[in-house]
């Protein structure tokens, strides 16, 4: 009896050990390099299971780039947005009796008990859309309220949570609608309703601090567009110009605004181009050149397939003709509007224009993306940061658009059809946007030992440098384009594992990359720009644009860039870049004859062609301002600062203090999560430090050891002598 029970026990123990070992092995297997592991269904199930336990997301990781219908979704964030929306709609029982105390008593008492950092994650932000507020009218969309950010900035919970329920065990803080509900409530006649309470609280503080929006739709709300179904009067099958005419019937002023906009003219003032800052005629339509399709001249009907107008098919297009504006490409809400990309901006014939016209509304990620996601001829080609995935939820792709559901115009504020924001690749700008417009110059607001250090960094480093450690996270992006090999119709096209072609006879050789580590450079917002007709660099690569900046320039910060390389044609005698004419009569695609193509392109662009060409290397800097990642995916201290790697405490600079977990502070965000992101990136970097490469940026080495650009640690100022 005894022996057999012992035996049973042993068997149970053994099987337990085997089981747990098996689980550990299985997790290890699932976590291992996915490329090498075989992709069985079981493994995927396991990965999903682990992810759901650790609330991790790797959707899109192993999916081919061409699959656009499978949005990556970061569960935790997604849930948070959904629950914020849900909470925003709730109403709760009214708190009738509040505990009376003076403002200073309450402030003092709360300061002991509550810190902004104690705010639980699900209360980080709210989508305020309470039916109590909308019962009279609903002209404005809901407000996104960044609760934790406000709490951190004011650092005083009692400012808004000015009373508590007069019940001992009630929560110290309640949502606004616990006390403020219907206006003119006879039960609580001295209490204003929710609508008034929120508006007074917000605008009161914003006015007092001269911070934050105070007008309805200048930052808090989005104004709802009236339903145009009944307003639009059109025939059953209108043509595109008829639709525009109908729009202009009621919106003539908006038509005028559009005529002077960059999206219409493709040229405009260039305040940020070095040496050209007084010009008002710079842009794609006039002087810029790139290493994708090179130039608009002679290639109109195709390039202008993305123009916000109809029929710009040659140089004679009339830019004063309002009736040729394409209103629908920006104001479509049906998602069905498409341009025929070869027809000078005309809509695809299959689009139901009547339906689209009746459903016009605010622009969205989709409408902006119609053109901006597919720069360089199709989605995923040009930017490495703007692609159709941004139209789906998922903060592991972009914290604003994916995580919080921002539309493009939430940041790119638009006035009179002039859209703020600019790109380093193009000179025109109708106002600029940067992270600190919302996040301030001290963007880290948490009460944490790191906050001070991180905010110091923002004087020298752009937000995206840490918050976008790699680009082209989920989709491949073109990194090199060699025009010189174009024209071989026989050549067999090879595709990489993402399905991207290495060659096209119309365009030449391509290289693609994915999860790429950016190139870092000092940038003060100004750009050196190579214009049509400028002499090329005879000694090497010609930079078509280049960020201006210097380690010793206080305005400069370190920014990440995508570098797009190219081989394109230059005039062998005159030494400037040539414009190839591609489609149509005289175009390269028709006759496969570069001579004719360049001659025709030169004629259209007004440059002389000597009759001889050569292939030269060019490069473009493209900024990486989208696909911003939340802090859990940002670079950690150790990832750049070698000197922190082997330390165990903050004692190098600070008096050592027990209870501070140095490793948690300095290593957070590093390795594991980034490894998942950089599955294909140069993995040797992952456990290395010096991610930015300090020497390349002009430092002697890790600034903790060698001193910063203006200041030497730990104490004392000095003029940095480590200039390049």
């Amino acid at each position: 009896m005894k022996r057999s029970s012992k035996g049973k026990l042993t068997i149970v123990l053994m099987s337990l050990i085997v089981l747990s070992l098996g689980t550990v092995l299985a997790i290890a297997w699932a976590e291992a390099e996915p490329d090498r592991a075989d992709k069985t269904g079981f493994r995927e199930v396991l990965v999903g299971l682990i992810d759901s336990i650790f609330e991790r997301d790797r959707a899109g990781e192993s999916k081919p780039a061409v699959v656009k219908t499978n949005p990556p979704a970061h569960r935790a964030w997604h849930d948070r947005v959904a629950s914020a929306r849900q909470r925003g709609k709730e109403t709760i029982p009214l708190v009738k009796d509040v505990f009376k105390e003076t403002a200073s008593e309450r402030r003092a008492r709360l300061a002991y008990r509550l810190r902004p950092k104690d705010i639980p994650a699900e209360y980080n932000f709210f989508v305020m859309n309470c039916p109590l507020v909308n019962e009279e009218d609903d002209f404005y969309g809901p407000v996104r309220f960044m609760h934790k950010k406000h709490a951190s900035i004011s650092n005083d919970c009692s400012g808004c949570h000015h009373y508590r329920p007069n019940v001992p065990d009630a929560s110290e803080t309640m949502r606004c609608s616990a006390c403020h509900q219907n206006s003119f409530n006879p039960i609580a006649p001295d209490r204003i309703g929710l609508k008034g309470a929120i508006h007074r609280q917000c605008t009161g503080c914003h006015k007092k601090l001269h911070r934050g929006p105070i007008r309805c739709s200048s930052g808090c709300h989005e104004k709802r567009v009236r339903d145009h179904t009944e307003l639009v009067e059109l025939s059953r099958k209108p043509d595109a110009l008829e639709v525009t005419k109908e729009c202009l019937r009621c919106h003539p002023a908006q038509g005028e605004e559009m005529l002077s906009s960059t999206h219409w003219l493709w040229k405009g003032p260039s305040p940020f181009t070095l040496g050209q800052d007084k010009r008002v005629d710079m842009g794609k339509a006039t002087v810029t050149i790139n290493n994708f399709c090179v130039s608009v001249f002679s290639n109109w009907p195709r390039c202008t397939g993305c123009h916000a107008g109809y029929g710009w098919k040659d140089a004679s297009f009339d830019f004063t003709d309002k009736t040729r504006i394409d209103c629908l490409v920006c104001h479509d809400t049906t998602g069905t509007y498409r341009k025929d990309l070869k027809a000078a901006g005309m809509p695809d014939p299959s689009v139901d224009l009547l339906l689209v016209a009746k459903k016009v509304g605010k622009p969205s990620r989709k409408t902006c993306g119609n053109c901006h996601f597919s720069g360089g001829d199709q989605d995923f080609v040009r930017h490495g940061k703007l692609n159709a995935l941004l139209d789906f939820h998922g903060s592991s792709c972009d914290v604003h658009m994916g995580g919080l559901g921002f539309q493009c115009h939430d940041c790119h504020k638009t006035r009179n059809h002039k859209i703020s924001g600019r790109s380093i690749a193009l000179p025109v700008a109708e106002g600029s946007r940067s992270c600190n417009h919302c996040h301030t110059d001290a963007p880290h607001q948490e009460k944490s030992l790191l906050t001070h250090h991180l905010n110091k960094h923002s004087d020298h480093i752009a937000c995206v440098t840490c918050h976008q450690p790699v680009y082209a996270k989920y989709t491949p992006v073109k990194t090199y384009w060699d025009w010189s090999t174009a024209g071989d119709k026989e050549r067999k096209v090879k595709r990489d594992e993402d399905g991207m072609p290495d060659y096209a006879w119309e365009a030449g050789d391509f290289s693609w990359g994915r999860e790429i580590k950016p190139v870092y450079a000092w940038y003060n917002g100004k750009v050196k720009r190579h214009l049509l007709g400028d002499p090329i660099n005879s000694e090497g690569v010609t930079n078509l644009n280049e960020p201006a900046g210097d380690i010793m320039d206080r305005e400069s910060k370190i920014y990440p860039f995508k570098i797009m390389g190219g081989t394109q044609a230059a005039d062998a005698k005159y030494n400037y870049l040539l414009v190839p004419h591609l489609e149509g009569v005289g175009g390269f695609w028709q006759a496969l004859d570069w001579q004719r193509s360049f001659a025709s392109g030169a004629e259209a662009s007004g440059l002389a062609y000597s009759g001889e060409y050569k292939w030269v290397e060019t490069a473009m800097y493209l900024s990486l301002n989208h696909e911003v990642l939340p802090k859990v995916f940002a670079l950690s201290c150790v990832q750049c600062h070698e000197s922190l790697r082997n330390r165990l405490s903050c004692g190098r600079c600070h008096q050592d203090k027990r209870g501070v977990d140095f490793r948690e502070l300095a290593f957070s965000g590093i390795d594991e999560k980034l490894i998942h992101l950089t599955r294909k990136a140069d993995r040797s970097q992952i456990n290395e430090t010096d991610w930015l490469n300090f020497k390349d940026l002009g430092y002697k080495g890790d600034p903790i050891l060698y001193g910063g650009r203006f200041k030497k640690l730990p104490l004392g100022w000095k003029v940095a002598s480590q200039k390049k």
Partner: protein
Amino acid sequence: MNISRRHFLGVAGGMISSAAAGNCKKVFAARQPKAPPNPYGCVVDLTACVGCRTCEQACNRVNHLPPPKERLDDRTVLDQKRRPSTGAFTVINSYYSGRLDEQNQLVPTYVKVQCMHCQDPACASACITGALSKKDNGAVHYDKSKCVGCRYCLVACPFQIPAYEYFDPLTPRVRKCTFCYERISMGGKPGCAAACPMEAITFGNRQILLEGTRRKITANPVRYLNKIYGESEVGGTSWMYISKDPFEKLGFLSLPHYPMPHLTETIQHSIFAYMWAPITLFAILTGAMWKINPEQINHAPGFQAQEDHI
């Protein structure tokens, strides 16, 4: 604010005639106040109004008027000192009392203008057909079917509120804020008050409102002047205002604290008492005719010709 010609004529004319009548005491004493006992009211907190004009938009919507001509974000109209009109029963005007903010900028105060719904309304008492009447819920209500278009109400109103549809030759109406009569009769709120994002307009039982407002003023003596405009002006109004700045600087008239019908009815009653006015009028007219120079009559071309004839 300048007193307009119409107002001057209305009040000054009345004063002169009543002074001329000399014997109005009897009529004063005879008149009974017509205020309903338990009306609704509104208090506009001028310190809370931000001049967003949402109330204008809402008023036009609930009264089926065309939307305001000027775009809501056009803030230049606030400086135009508009008056309520046939197309806008309420308007927001801005006044600068001289108060400066921390940037040394003048601080505007926005004043919502609409019919005050006087407790004992001059317009209704001037109305010869009873088209305008004070309802129990506080609204001064206009019944188009009774209106003959005499426009006495326009002259009588001390706040110059009613507007007349002069452009409509067939069915012109007197237009003014209705206190959203239908809505509040059905237990709703006035459109403007319900829409105001700042809840600058508080709607409720006038008596309870007054008590609450007094409590508010006592609790915030820095924020509010110790005065509720409309509490007793012209005998009390259903719409009342509280403010930080003196009301005279915000375009509010200093009006007597007794109901205006005392004046208007006095005027009317005095005019027709003992038929003295018609008699006087005819006497004056006769005198005037006598005064006309007979020589001038003689020099008229017709007489001349006759003379020639003779």
